[in-house]
């Protein structure tokens, strides 16, 4: 088991190196650089001055020098300076990363809290009115674009009813560590989380429903019924155990999906997370920040996939680990 986890982790190293090279090249291939981004609307800076600044920051060096510099610094925790924020990228990322992780984690939790019971009900009582209702919800949620839904939520519950704050991650007046501070955090989370979760339940519900319908008449379930196991236990002990297994293993992928998918939600709810930062940095061509962010989300995909593999190998006895 430990050997498997170790080996699985080792595989990540070449993946990460490859990722970093790709990210670096994509970033430098973007039209314009930090200098154009920072001074494009400033008539006081002449092209000659721009060129001097480029020279000073090493932007004219060959790619491998730039890449080497970037990697060795990154390994020391220095991801460079953001030209637009005039702050180290690491500092810039720190708070936002924890915000995004909080948002993603809670969204995932709420998604499962909604999707798993609904999927089970729909699968177990297939073709009942409850099933039809759930399937309808599923189609609607699948078809609804997230930004439309999120704007609607914002409009109704913040502007019209005023129940929740319009943006931000916490009330600036709240003092860190107090009870009010946490309440404020929760209040700021409600709308972004619900907007994400209500639309994300689709795949889990659909998957669970189909799998339960499929498993219901499998041979081992017949065996269970032939033993005289009451119907509720047939579900809890036999069907669900098998049907929930793949969902546990999707967990890793879901997390990465959420980090990538946070762009819309964070932008609409002005939630200070990575997604929002990402969008802003692209617009301002903040090379260092964008590279760091793409690198982080890429690494998240790699780690998430590994997590999925490890979870699956733990929960499923059929996967042999030697």
């Amino acid at each position: 088991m430990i050997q498997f986890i170790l080996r699985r982790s080792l595989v990540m190293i070449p993946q990460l190196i490859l990722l970093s090279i790709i990210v670096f090249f994509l970033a430098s291939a973007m039209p314009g650089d930090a200098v154009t981004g920072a001074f494009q609307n400033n008539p006081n800076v002449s092209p000659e001055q721009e060129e001097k600044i480029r020279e000073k920051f090493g932007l004219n060096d060959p790619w491998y020098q730039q890449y080497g510099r970037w990697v060795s610094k990154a390994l020391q925790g220095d991801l460079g300076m953001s030209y637009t924020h005039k702050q180290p990228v690491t500092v810039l990322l720190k708070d936002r990363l924890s915000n995004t992780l909080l948002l993603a984690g809670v969204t995932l939790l709420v998604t499962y809290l909604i999707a798993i019971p609904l999927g089970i009900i729909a699968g177990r009582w297939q073709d009942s009115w409850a099933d039809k209702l759930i399937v309808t919800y599923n189609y609607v949620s699948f078809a609804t674009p997230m930004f439309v839904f999120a704007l609607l939520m914002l409009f109704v519950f913040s502007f019209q009813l005023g129940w929740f704050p319009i943006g931000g991650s916490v009330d600036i007046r709240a003092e860190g560590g107090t009870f009010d501070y946490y309440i404020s955090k929760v209040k700021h989370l409600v709308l972004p989380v619900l907007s994400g979760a209500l639309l994300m339940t689709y795949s889990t519900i659909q998957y669970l429903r189909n799998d339960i319908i499929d498993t219901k008449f499998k041979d081992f379930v017949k065996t269970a019924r032939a033993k005289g196991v009451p119907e509720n236990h047939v579900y809890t002990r036999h069907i669900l155990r098998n049907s929930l297994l793949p969902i546990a293993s999707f967990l890793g992928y879901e997390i990465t999906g959420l980090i990538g998918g946070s762009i819309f939600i964070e932008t609409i709810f002005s939630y200070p997370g990575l997604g929002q930062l990402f969008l802003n940095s692209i617009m301002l061509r903040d090379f260092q920040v964008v590279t760091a962010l793409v690198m982080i989300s890429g690494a998240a995909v790699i780690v998430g996939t590994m997590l999925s593999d490890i979870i699956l190998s733990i929960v499923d006895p059929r996967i042999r680990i030697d």
Partner: protein
Amino acid sequence: MSLLKVNNLKVHYPIRGGFFRTVKDHVRAVDGVSFELDKGETYGLVGESGCGKTTTGRAIIGLNSVTEGEIIFEGEDLVSLKHRDRRKYIQDIQMVFQDPYSSLNSRKNVLNIIAEPLRNFERLSPTEELLRVQELVERVGLTPESIYKYPHQFSGGQRQRIGIARALTLNPKLIIADEPVSALDVSVQAQVLNFMQDIQEEFDLTYLFISHDLGIVRHMSDRLGIMHNGRLVEEGTRDDIFENAQHPYTKRLLAAIPEMEPEKRIDKKVLREEVNRLYREQHDAYYSEDGRVYDLQSLTETHSVALQGGAKQ
């Protein structure tokens, strides 16, 4: 000269293990099998699951790669030939698969299924192709209009006939039939077996008949080979095997055939116990220390059995 001569055929698969997934050992799926098929005969290859009989058949037709050995078809060693040169020999060898439900592409109609080998190997005009397919379809006992139907519209027996028709399109000399009737109902089994015997005569076919069912093999084969652990334990004519089995594994297989006379049930049970006891007691005379079957030794001109003392390889 024999039509097919398989000489010391080996098919090994690597087992990987350890931290760097290096090759630790090999699964010896087929481990030195030799036999010959004469033109027009049916050779039965018998054994239980995992004995290597299917791998042997698939290796002959090129679906499994050969680790070592020769497959000499009409005097030419197929193993040493380049892929391109193999083609002209390979169209003389066709395969009929076990499961008529999954071995036919469900999205193609019968015309396209049967014509596929023709399109791969021969250039015919659409009309010629159609005529050839219709002829075959009628020969296997299906109505001419069935060429526009899809596999799911047929019963299991009919599907197996389609599979056979596909195998016949190129006028092959050898047909490798891998458990061709195992997935079929008893009475349908009999229909297909009768049919296979009919076309054998008509098309002058040689069969390599792979099966786990001794009753069927006995009915179909002139000679047979019994496989165990990737090797032949006994080979002989039908009478050699069924009337005069020597190897304890063959005896065990024969004793496993259900007794058709209800009065003899108890005797059969006693016989099985006896045979199993023999199998344990004589094990060392017939298997080496690491469980490998010894090489075949001739008892008579037709009958040979794997015994200790066979020539070392």
